[in-house]
């Protein structure tokens, strides 16, 4: 389905040309006064399935925005919230049986597992890209497939270094290291001061995948090359794992068993002074009635992941997309809903309520005051810009999702870091498992 319906809906003005001419500039593009709206079907009703909040403000504001949509359009919207890891199977079932919610807010490369089941949202995404864009390349990777948009990127649940400022200072660092060499020194110094770092090495879908992929990419390693051929067996991967082997002894004991919630708990109870996470630890500490946690929030700070020998950011984070299924009886109402939610009035309020838990996929929202009103939010601002998509440097699809879900990179890093396998063996095992899916 490649028929573009954009022209049917886009009521363009001369502003478009002006907007396009501005190119990469960050000037507010809405000045271009583009308007697009989809005419909802008569009697439309929508069912939306989304991931359960990581921070309360996110859900509250999403619901408030939804209510606003209902007030304006009269379209009834039912929103169900479920654990983010349960969304994937549910969405897959919906895609399989051709029945279920009209819209699903999902994560990572889910949409690339069943692109044929998804409604073409090119008109909407091109409109948003022109008005608030451009889209970051990570957003395009997640939302675009073949020659069309299959998902509307919502943003990234950014992943940054979370650290205790006083502990890092005590370890002799005025500011958080910007490169991997300095980062290793920091971790060693923190360990020496008995305020160790801790990074999940268990099967933690979010946090372990985030930092292990960063590590691999920072040294130039990658699971597959541009042609999606398995390329994990490289000297760059060896370098990454040798680094991991030096890093691991600085961790607090027990990280091999850590799941997604462990580092939050350990950080909030001051067992560790450095870990990787979204903004949810800070959100929990800041909004806690406990004065001890409030003090911790004041002492904590965020930083972007250090840059490795490749010389550019190689962050990895959870990415959120929204998809409309082809089976939906109200495709126009669904598009209108997503358009409404992505417009400035709603999107900025949503980001604000979640104190930036969702980092924008569109450059325009860099100007959202939420990123500057508290300097501790700022590192999350460029999450989408700094991140590489899953399955880098190959294409997203079933293979990239399968490798991520099977923890191939995490297992490889854990095996090498702990010495349970030699570095070449750990790489070979990962290579074999990856080839299974990328064959």
């Amino acid at each position, binding site marked *: 389905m490649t028929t573009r319906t954009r022209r049917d809906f886009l009521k363009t003005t001369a502003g478009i040309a002006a907007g396009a001419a501005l190119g990469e500039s960050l000037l507010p593009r809405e000045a271009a006064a583009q308007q697009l709206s989809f005419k909802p079907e008569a009697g439309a009703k929508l069912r939306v399935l989304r991931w359960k909040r990581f921070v309360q403000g996110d859900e509250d504001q999403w619901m408030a925005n939804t209510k606003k949509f209902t007030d304006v359009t009269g379209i009834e919207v039912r929103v169900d919230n479920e654990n983010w*890891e349960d969304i*994937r*199977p549910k969405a*897959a079932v919906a*895609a*399989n049986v051709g029945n279920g919610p009209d819209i699903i807010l999902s994560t990572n490369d889910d949409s690339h*597992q*069943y692109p044929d*089941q998804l409604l073409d949202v090119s008109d909407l995404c091109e409109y948003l890209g022109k008005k608030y864009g451009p889209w970051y390349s990570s957003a395009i990777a997640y939302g675009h497939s073949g020659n069309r948009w299959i998902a509307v990127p919502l943003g990234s649940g950014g992943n940054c270094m979370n650290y205790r400022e006083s502990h890092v200072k005590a370890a002799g660092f005025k500011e958080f290291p910007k490169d991997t060499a300095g980062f290793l020194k920091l971790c060693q110094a923190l360990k020496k001061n008995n305020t160790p770092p801790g990074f999940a*090495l*268990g*099967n*933690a*879908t979010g946090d372990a995948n985030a930092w292990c992929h960063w590590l691999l990419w920072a040294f130039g390693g990658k699971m597959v090359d541009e042609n999606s051929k398995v390329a994990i067996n490289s000297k760059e991967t060896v370098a990454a794992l040798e680094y991991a082997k030096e890093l691991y002894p600085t961790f*607090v*004991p*027990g*990280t*091999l*068993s*850590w*799941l997604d919630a*462990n580092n939050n*708990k*350990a950080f909030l*109870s001051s*067992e560790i002074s450095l870990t990787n996470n979204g903004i949810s630890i800070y959100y929990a500490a800041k909004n806690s009635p406990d004065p001890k946690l409030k003090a911790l929030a004041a002492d904590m700070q965020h930083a972007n992941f250090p840059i490795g020998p490749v010389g550019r950011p190689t962050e990895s984070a959870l990415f959120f997309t929204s998809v409309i299924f082809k089976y939906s009886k109200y495709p126009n109402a669904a598009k209108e809903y997503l358009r409404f939610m992505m417009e400035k009035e709603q999107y900025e309020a949503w980001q604000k309520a979640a104190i930036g838990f969702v980092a924008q996929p569109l450059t325009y929202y860099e100007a959202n005051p939420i990123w500057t009103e508290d300097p501790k939010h700022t590192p999350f601002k460029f999450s989408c810009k700094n991140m590489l998509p899953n399955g880098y440097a190959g294409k997203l699809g*079933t293979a990239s*999702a*399968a490798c991520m*879900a*099977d923890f191939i990179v995490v*297992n490889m890093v*854990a*095996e090498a870091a*702990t010495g*349970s396998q030699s570095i070449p063996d750990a790489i070979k*095992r990962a290579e*074999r*498992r990856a080839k*299974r*899916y990328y064959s």
Partner: protein
Amino acid sequence: MNAPQPPLVSPAVYAPVAPSFLARVFDNRHFLGLLFMLPAAALLIVFLTYPLGLGVFLGFTDAKVGRPGEWIGIENYDFLVTDSVFRLAVWNTFLYTFIASVIKFALGLWLALLLNEHIPFKAFVRAIVLLPFIVPTVLSAIAFWWIYDAQFSVISWLLTKIGVIHTYINFLGEPNLARMSVIIANIWRGVPFVAICLLAGLQTISPSLYEAAAIDGANGFQKFWHVTLPMLSPIIAVVMTFSVLFTFTDFQLIWVLTRGGPINATHLMATLSFQRAIPGGALGEGAAIATAMIPFLLAAILFSYFGLQRRKWQQGAKD
């Protein structure tokens, strides 16, 4: 409906007025039997046979989530036998099932024998014993998750406070310790089921058998060995079959505690099957892993039915 039917039996021999076709059909015990079984059979076919058959079928395809697969024969199994993670999961499953089942049986039988004695507040104590079994698995798993936490474990805390250890125990972070920890959690959960079922069995043993044994001069152990155990063996067979099946297919406990980590040391076939099929999207391969459990489960069932339930054994005789 009322179309004339050729008579089944010659009217001359049978009766002057032949009963209607329907009446005859409903008088037929074979037909009636079939009819009465139909609802149950329909339920079994729709909810058991079909999903099972579909699962087995999927195991021979390369189906992905959201996309029907193509028949690829035994390619999934070909890969799995060479896959180190799968082989580890099979080994883990056997270890987990064997150790947990043996200990659950020993503890369960012991507990049942104790509860069968006359103790104060008997009914109350028996009810309490069932608690671990009643609590939803996920809840008890979360409790164990805290108990085993690398930083907050109450066991580690207690032991450090009294000075036995100086660093926290890495319950779920060290492969063998992690295996032991999940097995203990499984035992804690499974013992009440075994105990209560065996207790029910114990109460059906006629006291006269013990009296007869006492007259013959049997001591406590001999009574247990020659009366209790043989009389209990049918129940043991059933209970242990269930127990082995539950343990072999355990999922929730592992999923909450470790997700199969550290480095896949606690992955069971059930958890690996889910991980690959649903989050990983490789439905065919996940189905193949699940299907690979069936022969082992069948073997466990056959063993208990043809082995433990042998009449000779129940009567205390050797082969």
